[in-house]
């Protein structure tokens, strides 16, 4: 259990990054985040090591441990996870790694190439590209993960309601979602942005409503199967409340598909956020965002290719790692693939 | 009686290369089938019955499996050494196969007629029209009512028994000289089971083909088989004519197998079963593979694998119980 808790702590500390926007003066938050992340990761490693000892003695394993074992066997997924952890550390430690601020303009060094002061050069306004990319990763991962978590929570909630109560609730929720799903997400985003304007909060809101159908459908399906089991009826007969049945008996049985879907959709969500930022509808300047950097870079393609290359490769690396990790989680949880 | 056998398998070895190790699906299996006769291959699941059958048609999925040794002589031709293209001309044409799962063995995206006609077009070089006519005749032959309409239907529109009839129609469409039926009735209702068995028996007599019937059901064996091969852990432990197998069985495994399917009028309190499970194929016992479960195991059973002991021309068993009494002829 320690292992899981420390993992959650670690994830939470990554999540927290989103609330710390790139203001280099707030170094102490960075320090706090670093401490909690290291603590979480350390506990996690210790628990894993301890777990390994136990394994030899006990051959009966829970499904979650089995999944973890399978995931550990998958080398690509482990490397991807390593890259993600490394990137999270990098972003948290950003102010300590480079003395350059992502916002300060160096008018003496406009659009420069690689140098010892500006490791990856500067952009058209003399801002350090490396520093901007680091803070861009922080924002992308922070908002991406937050949006997926919210998306998962909302989707799961709707799916649970629809599946558990059935009847009119089910019809209403699923029909609404069908209409929602019948409009391509980008168009919904454009409509919402046109009505409400842009901003981080709205961005998270929009993206967290993007993939509801997929979650709700899968959860509803699992709930319908779980509901058939006798123990649910038994729980109801002895007067356990609906909420309690859902939380204690139904939800734990749907964890696998939720995990798979969530981990597979992080990559795509980050791409969507980067895309909206590229269009100028996502994260707004001056806050550094990888998508925004690319949009800026395209204008100076002739003069300074680094301005496009650095943020582009960075997004690719993040999304690739999340996708590889997501594939690993799917393979580990989907027993169908393991026969 | 020295008859030229239709199919003769000699020392067949089929091996599976898995992540955890090497599994011998068939370990030196030898058997003979004469034209027109029925050989039943009996054994628990995992005993290598299906692997033997699939090896004959070279249908073992590779990877992980492969035929590593032995010969499969069909009408004098060694199937193991045939090239894929030559093998293809034998499959469905001279040797046909019926599978266990009628629900999943038919292609859901093709009409029943097309599926029957396909092998006719392929092997008999008939035109589409003639092949469909042949398909209709085949449906009639396997007792499907209104064949003209059924021809255009899809598998999901049919019941399990009906689908197995279609499978038989597909298999017999080119009048093969050998039919391999891999548990053709185990997935069906009891009443349908006997219908299908009767149908197969009738068609076998009509067309004069030989049948290899793979089953774990001793009742089915008693009804249909001329000869019986009993398999355990990839090898044949007893082989003989049906009469010998039922009334003069030698191997403790077969004896146990027979006891476990006593008919209801025997009225026993407790159905005798063979204790334990099939051993892990990755860690087979060193000696006789049945030794850990055998009620009459001896010391030698642990150390050495028994060789076949012949009781008459055709009847033999691999067991140390009979090792001293009879001379081996091989």
């Amino acid at each position, binding site marked *: 259990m320690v292992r899981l808790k420390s993992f959650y702590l670690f994830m939470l500390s990554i999540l927290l990054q989103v609330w710390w926007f790139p203001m280099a003066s707030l170094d102490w938050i960075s320090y706090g985040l670093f401490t909690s992340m290291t603590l979480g990761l350390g506990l996690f490693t210790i628990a894993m090591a301890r777990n390994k000892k136990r394994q030899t003695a006990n051959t009966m394993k829970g499904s979650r441990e089995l999944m973890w074992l399978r995931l550990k066997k998958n080398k690509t997924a482990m490397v991807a996870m390593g890259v993600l952890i490394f990137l999270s550390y990098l972003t948290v430690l950003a102010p300590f790694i480079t003395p350059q601020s992502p916002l300060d303009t160096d008018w003496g060094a406009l659009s420069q190439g690689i140098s010892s002061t500006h490791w990856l050069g500067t952009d058209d306004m003399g801002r350090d590209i490396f520093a901007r990319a680091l803070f861009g990763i922080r924002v992308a991962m922070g908002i991406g993960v937050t949006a997926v978590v919210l998306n998962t929570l909302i989707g799961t909630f709707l799916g649970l309601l629809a599946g558990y109560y059935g009847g009119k609730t089910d019809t209403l929720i699923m029909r609404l979602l069908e209409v929602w799903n019948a409009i*391509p997400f980008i168009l919904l985003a454009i*409509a919402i942005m046109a009505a*409400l304007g842009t901003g981080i909060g709205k961005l998270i809101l929009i993206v967290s409503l993007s993939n509801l159908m997929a979650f709700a459908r899968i959860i509803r399906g699992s709930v319908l199967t779980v509901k058939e089991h006798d123990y649910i009826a038994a729980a109801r007969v002895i007067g356990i409340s609906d909420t309690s049945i859902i939380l204690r008996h139904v939800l734990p049985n749907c964890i696998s598909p939720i995990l798979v879907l969530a981990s597979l959709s992080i990559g795509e969500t980050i791409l969507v956020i980067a895309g909206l930022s590229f269009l100028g509808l996502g994260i707004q300047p001056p806050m550094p965002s990888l998508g925004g950097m*690319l949009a800026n870079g395209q204008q100076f393609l002739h003069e300074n290719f680094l301005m496009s290359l650095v943020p582009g490769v960075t997004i690719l690396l993040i999304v690739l790692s999340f996708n590889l990790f997501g594939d690993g989680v799917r393979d580990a949880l989907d027993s169908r693939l393991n026969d | 009686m020295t008859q030229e056998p239709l199919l003769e398998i000699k020392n067949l070895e089929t091996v599976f290369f898995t992540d955890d190790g090497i599994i011998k699906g068939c370990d030196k299996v030898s058997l003979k089938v004469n034209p027109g006769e029925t050989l039943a291959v009996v054994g628990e699941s995992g005993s290598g019955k299906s692997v033997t059958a699939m090896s004959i048609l070279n249908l073992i999925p590779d990877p992980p499996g492969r035929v590593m040794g032995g010969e499969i002589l069909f009408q004098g031709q060694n199937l193991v050494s045939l090239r894929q293209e030559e093998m293809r001309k034998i499959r469905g044409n001279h040797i046909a196969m019926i599978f266990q799962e009628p629900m999943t063995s038919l292609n859901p995206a093709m009409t029943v007629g097309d599926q029957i006609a396909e092998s006719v077009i392929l092997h008999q070089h008939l035109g589409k029209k003639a092949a469909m006519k042949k398909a209709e005749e085949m449906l009639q032959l396997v007792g499907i009512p209104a064949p003209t309409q059924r021809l255009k239907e899809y598998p999901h529109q049919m019941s399990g028994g009906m689908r197995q009839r279609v499978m038989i129609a597909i298999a017999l469409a080119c009048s093969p000289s050998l039919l391999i039926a891999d548990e053709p009735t185990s997935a069906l209702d009891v009443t349908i089971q006997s219908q299908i068995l009767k149908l197969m028996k009738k068609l076998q007599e009509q067309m004069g083909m030989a049948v290899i019937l793979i089953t774990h059901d001793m009742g089915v064996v008693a009804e249909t088989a001329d000869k019986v091969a009993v398999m355990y852990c990839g090898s044949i432990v007893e082989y003989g004519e049906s009469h010998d197998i039922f009334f003069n069985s030698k191997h403790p495994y077969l004896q146990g197998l027979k006891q476990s399917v006593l008919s209801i009028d025997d009225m026993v309190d407790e159905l005798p079963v063979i204790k334990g499970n099939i051993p892990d194929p990755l860690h087979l016992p060193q000696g006789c593979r049945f030794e850990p479960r055998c009620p009459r195991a001896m010391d030698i059973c642990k150390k050495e694998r028994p060789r076949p002991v012949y009781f008459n021309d055709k009847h033999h068993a691999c067991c140390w119980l009979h090792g001293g009494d009879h001379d081996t002829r091989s």
Partner: protein
Amino acid sequence: MLNYTLRRLMLLVPLLFFISVMIFGILKLTPGDPAVVLLGERATTEALELTREKYALNKPVHIQYVKMMTHLFTGELKSIYYRENVIMVVLKKMKPTLELGGAAMVLAILVSIPAGIISAVKRNSFFDYASMTTALFGISIPVFFTGILLIYFFAVKMRLLPASGYGGGIFTMDGIRHLIMPAFVLSFTMMASTTRITRASMLDVIKEDYIRTARAKGVREFTVIMVHAFKNALMPVTTNLGNQIARLFAGAVLTETVFAWPGVGRLAVNAIFRRDEPLVFGCVLILSFIYVVVNLLVDLFYGVINPQIRYE
């Protein structure tokens, strides 16, 4: 099949209705005076009053909705920026978008389905690894980054292709030269995920019992794969096509922006920046309608290839 088609077609009407209601509802969330929103900030008081009257802005919401829709279709709803009827503005930009989207979709399907089949059949071969790695990059790389890379190498460095803009129709040489890069960029993501899905479903299908039956019949391996297996593997691929097309829309907006392609996607994004609310409404609504119709066609195709639906 007829039944299925009719049912689908009948569902189209309420679906389109609810979509328009939903989009209308979202745009109603705009804070501030809707009359000002519709006319732009420089409108005179009289004009505002007239607009309120015309769009029934002082009436209940459902009447506003009806008015808005009738105005949209009668052409009375005008774009603030272009000062022209919204539908006309959108239709003028439709041709480039359809060319881009169509070319990308055809390209994606032509490449991904054979690639997926070969990967599945030759599993763990060099081709499989190569195409799976490419596909993984394809789903991980942002559309606009692919676009910028291509522009950098083929337009800025090698000067082979024009960096941006529309060349004038798919049937002109110049049009094709301009279309190559955007169409490839847009199709890359769809190509990648369709290859992955095709491979996965082929691998699933190849394990099925009926493939063994086909082999036991002596069917040629090529026929086993292309007829017996592919016919069944096509169903999950088709089911997923709807999702792919939704992504294609998002990709199209980005591609049009990167390549300055004069299409509806860019029109919609620019409309946001120009605070051209009527045009946003028109763009989003018309694109959604197109999406729904394309999805309907996909559904109907699914019905054609799936006998369980055809013979319901």
